[in-house]
């Protein structure tokens, strides 16, 4: 090939030979080149050689390629088939914009759900049952009695009601006197393992006094109400 390698002679117009053969010269340049050909034998020879080769290839194309029909390409079914769901999802997340959008929506939905559930829990009224005393902070801390009313008397004895409680319990218990909780008492930590029920003097667990026993339900459920305190106060009395 090295021996056959042709080089473009430099006569000032050699760079335009191919443009002339393929008719890619501007009109003015074409006229100038045709004027040059009349007195440059090397360029004339080149134009003749290149045109002959070009015409030969063009003839081949016209005779054998032009009559051929369209390629009629059809994508094979195996390739054109819709991808599986997993592949579609993966392809979707390959687009960074989509992935970022979905991630933002998911985070937003998670935050919204968190706050929604949180507000529901706070607004849900506590179910007051004697068997499962639930401590509700808002009930404990907020005074349920208007300030102008006389302070209710928490320390009450209702023999009939206590008797009824005792009859329900299989174990005889000692009468318990419950005093009003002192407001200055700090709230106990919720993780405090101390039980929610009172302990009778005989060591048996006793449920917190039924709520209908007292007018102030919230105060009777206060975990800070401990019998040791009550007895201590009794002793002082």
């Amino acid at each position, binding site marked *: 090939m090295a021996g*056959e390698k042709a080089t473009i002679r430099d006569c000032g117009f050699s760079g335009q030979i191919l443009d002339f053969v393929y008719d890619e010269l501007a009109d003015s340049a074409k006229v100038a080149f045709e004027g040059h050909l009349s007195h440059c034998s090397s360029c004339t020879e080149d134009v003749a050689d290149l045109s002959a*080769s070009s015409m030969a290839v063009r003839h081949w194309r016209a005779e054998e390629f032009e009559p051929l029909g369209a*390629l009629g*390409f059809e994508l094979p079914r195996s390739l054109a088939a819709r991808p599986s769901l997993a592949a579609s999802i993966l392809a979707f997340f390959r687009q960074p914009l989509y992935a970022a959008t979905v991630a933002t929506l998911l985070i937003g939905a998670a935050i919204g759900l968190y706050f929604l559930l949180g507000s529901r829990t706070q607004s849900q009224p506590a179910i007051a049952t004697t068997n499962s005393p639930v401590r509700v902070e808002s009930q404990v801390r907020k005074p349920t009695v208007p300030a102008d009313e006389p302070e209710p008397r928490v320390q009450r004895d209702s023999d009939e009601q206590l008797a009824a409680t005792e009859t329900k319990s299989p174990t005889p218990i000692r009468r318990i006197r419950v005093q009003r909780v002192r407001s200055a008492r700090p709230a106990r930590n919720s993780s405090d393992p101390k039980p929610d029920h009172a302990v009778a003097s005989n060591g048996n667990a006793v449920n917190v006094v039924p709520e209908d026993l007292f007018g102030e339900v919230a105060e009777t459920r206060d975990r800070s109400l401990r019998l040791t305190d009550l007895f201590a106060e009794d002793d002082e009395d």
Partner: protein
Amino acid sequence: MLRNLSDEQLVELAVRDDPDAFGEIVRRWERKIFALCFGMLGREDEARDAAQEAFINAYRSISRFRGDAKVSSWLHRIAVNQCLTVKRRQKSRSEEYLSEDDEAESRVFVASPAGSPKNIAEKGERLRLVRQAVGALPQELREVIVMKEFEEMTFQEIAETLELPLSTVKSRLYTALKQLKMKLERLQVEVV
């Protein structure tokens, strides 16, 4: 709607598994790619197979198209590579039976009694010679001459497609046409 989109937009859609977008790309380029394969291989059946295979390869690798080059350049490159693969297969196949090179083989074929020039129409014979001469050109020269003559691309388009300087494209085409002229003369002398 797809007809109004650019090649790059169609590729973007095809990447998202839209077969119609890829179908539009094929519709736009199939004739040129087919012509390129025909010029590179010289036979219709092989050119059809190579063009089909080139489009299938393009579809398979479309997700890797980065958009650095033009879609036409990308398709041309895939098609040329496919043609070279076919050529290599042909060569290795023929080497199993014949140890002669392509040119010697063509001479034997032209001079064989069954294909006697006296019995073959002059037109058909000349076409065969041209096909053989183009096929005997080095790949980079054949590529340029086929793009110019079969695809009718301008020098600038060829330069952009092959990502070569314009001067290199012209130089290659000049050399290709010159070599082709010499090969044709040599073959014709032998035939005569």
